[in-house]
């Protein structure tokens, strides 16, 4: 065990998987000599050489599409998208090539690729360094979408993703990169994909989130305990697609109340899918409306501090929603 930040955990997962399997390689902008915009790939060029840590041209499309081809040819590429805000050039590669390859070849050609994507706000990054757009990929069958909320999961899920035979979109929250530390095994382990976690057990109300807002939700849960003696069960979705619905449905069946929290825009954020699933499959369990705590439907995130703050989810906003639901 070692105390690691989220970025350390990512770095260590990459190093271990590269050492374990010679078909794993990295490609992306600035990932070599510089070690990545956030230093996720620090030291890997030196350790594994320029053939396996490729500083690519500034072209997200071919970063991903060349990875797809390499994956078809037996490699396990791990391309990096520096910011999700710049993923648009790779939209075709991801959604039309990678996601559909297995399907359109009836399983004869596949794409074991893990696209690492840095996302998320609350860092004053402004409109083009704060986006949280996971929905485009959740709405694309064939992709696995993963978004860890803590260092332990970041390492274990990334290792699982790299070994998985499906194209995985791996969302790393930039605010989490260095804002929290925890014990992380230095030995080999994985955290299973497609499985939500009960981040905090509780009996009174279910709060569902992922990524950075999962941490805020845990804080809000603690506040609810202190202030009102309310036991909040916090579900960490971890994998956003295909969604592990059973875990949160089971929780709502127990608590009868649900609040979904995410920092992406409200409309067709993952909260919509979670709420719709509950409203269809656990309707009889519900004692209160399903609430969503999200960013408003504006371009995310404006840069000026007050504008950003207005748009971001906070512990207080989550508490307010939990209180509203409990009061219902």
């Amino acid at each position, binding site marked *: 065990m070692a105390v690691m930040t989220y970025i350390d955990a990512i770095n260590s997962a990459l190093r271990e998987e590269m050492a374990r399997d010679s078909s794993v390689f990295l490609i992306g902008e600035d990932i070599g000599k510089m070690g990545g915009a956030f230093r996720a790939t620090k030291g890997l060029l030196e350790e594994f050489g320029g053939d*396996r840590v490729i500083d690519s041209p500034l072209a997200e499309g071919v970063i991903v*599409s*060349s990875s797809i*081809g390499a994956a078809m040819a037996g490699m396990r590429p791990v391309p990096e998208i520096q910011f999700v805000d710049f993923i648009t*050039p790779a939209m075709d590669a991801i959604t039309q090539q990678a996601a559909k390859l297995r399907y359109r070849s009836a*399983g*004869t050609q596949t794409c074991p690729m893990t696209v690492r994507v840095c996302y998320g706000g609350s860092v004053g990054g402004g409109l083009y360094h704060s986006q949280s757009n996971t929905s485009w990929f959740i709405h694309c069958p064939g992709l696995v979408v993963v978004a860890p909320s803590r260092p332990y999961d970041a390492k274990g899920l990334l290792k699982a993703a790299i070994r998985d035979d499906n194209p995985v979109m791996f969302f790393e929250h930039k605010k989490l990169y260095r804002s929290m530390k925890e014990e992380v095994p230095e030995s080999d382990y994985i955290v299973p994909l497609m499985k939500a976690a009960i981040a905090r057990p509780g009996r009174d109300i279910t709060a569902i989130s992922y990524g950075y807002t999962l941490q805020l939700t845990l804080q809000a849960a603690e506040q609810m305990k202190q202030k009102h003696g309310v036991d909040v069960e916090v579900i960490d979705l971890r994998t956003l697609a295909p969604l592990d619905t059973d875990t949160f449905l089971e929780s709502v069946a*127990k608590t009868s109340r649900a609040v979904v929290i995410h920092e992406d825009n409200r409309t067709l954020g993952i909260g919509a899918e979670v709420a719709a699933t509950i409203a269809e499959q656990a309707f009889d369990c519900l004692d209160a409306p399903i609430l969503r705590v999200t960013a408003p439907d504006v371009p995310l995130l404006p840069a000026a501090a007050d504008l950003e703050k207005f748009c971001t989810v906070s512990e207080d906003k989550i508490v307010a929603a939990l209180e509203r639901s409990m009061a219902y």
Partner: protein
Amino acid sequence: MATTVEPTRIAADVLMEKQSPEPDGALYRRLYSYMLKCRMVEERIRVLYRQGRFAGNYFAAVGQEATEVGVTLDLLPEDTIAPSHRNFVTHIMKGTPLPLMFAQIYGRKTSPDQGRSAPAHCGYAPLNVITPSSTIAAQLNVGTGIALAYTMRRRPNVVVALSGEGSTSLGFWHEAVNFAGVRRLPILIVVENNGYAESVPVALQTAVDDISVKAQAYGIPGVSVDGNDVVAVYAAAREAIDRARKGEGPTLLECRTYRWYGHSEIDPAKYRDPAEVAYWKARDPITAMELRLESAQLWTERWKRELESEFTREIDEAIAFAESSPAPEGKEALDEVYSFSIRERELERKVWEPRFTVGRAE
């Protein structure tokens, strides 16, 4: 101001001299017979389409056989073809069994894609034909990744990627060729310039006359050849492929040709001048090769008829196989989305009941 560069043009006659790898002109006869087979397969598919025997659409390369055949003859099984929508017949060149190809046209369970994609959009994994999507230039991009894997694995293989001149306008095309140039990938980038992208003439695609000039933007060799001259195409492709195998990087090869029919079977192609069509039909690559072979005493009417009846038999058998193959069952639509099954998830949506009352008033 940059001057315009004349791309190298290869005179086929010179090449007839230069290239004689096989005795008795066997090479030339093979080029010819493959062209004939491609033509016959596509003309038959077109008949089947008009008879309503399969659904969907088809993009015939009739008239372009010299290119389809010339750039793909004699690839190794481990080499990859990255075909576009108009390159279904390159399957013949790679060796995909004809019955499977017709099963694909019919969208049957026995086809390489088991009826999922459009009639002509299939790959063939055993012989490394990439399963194409429809996005123009996409296979070229995916192809760069296969070429990258070849270099990483130190394999002496190449990728032959095909697309039309329209593809060169897309950003994807550019990103792929640039990447191939930077990393000196073993890939042959074939641009079949047939003058039109659907209805749009090449003058509205690009302000250059020779597509091969574009190679200069990427620091790679660019060659333009008469795409209706199968020997010229073959020679140019072979040279590029040989260089790629030796680690000398990619080549951009423009083949100038023409499609006889519409963009697809539903396109009457009214945007073209009939005189233009007639001009190109008179330059039929197959007839041209017949004349050439005949003058070298490598061709007879009788041989052609033998080939025709052999191919007809093959095609008939392939169609019979396809027509007697089962259609995929509806539920199979749920398969191969992921490496694991989603059938249960999609077919049995559970409903939850309250587990216990939490003891709060409503």
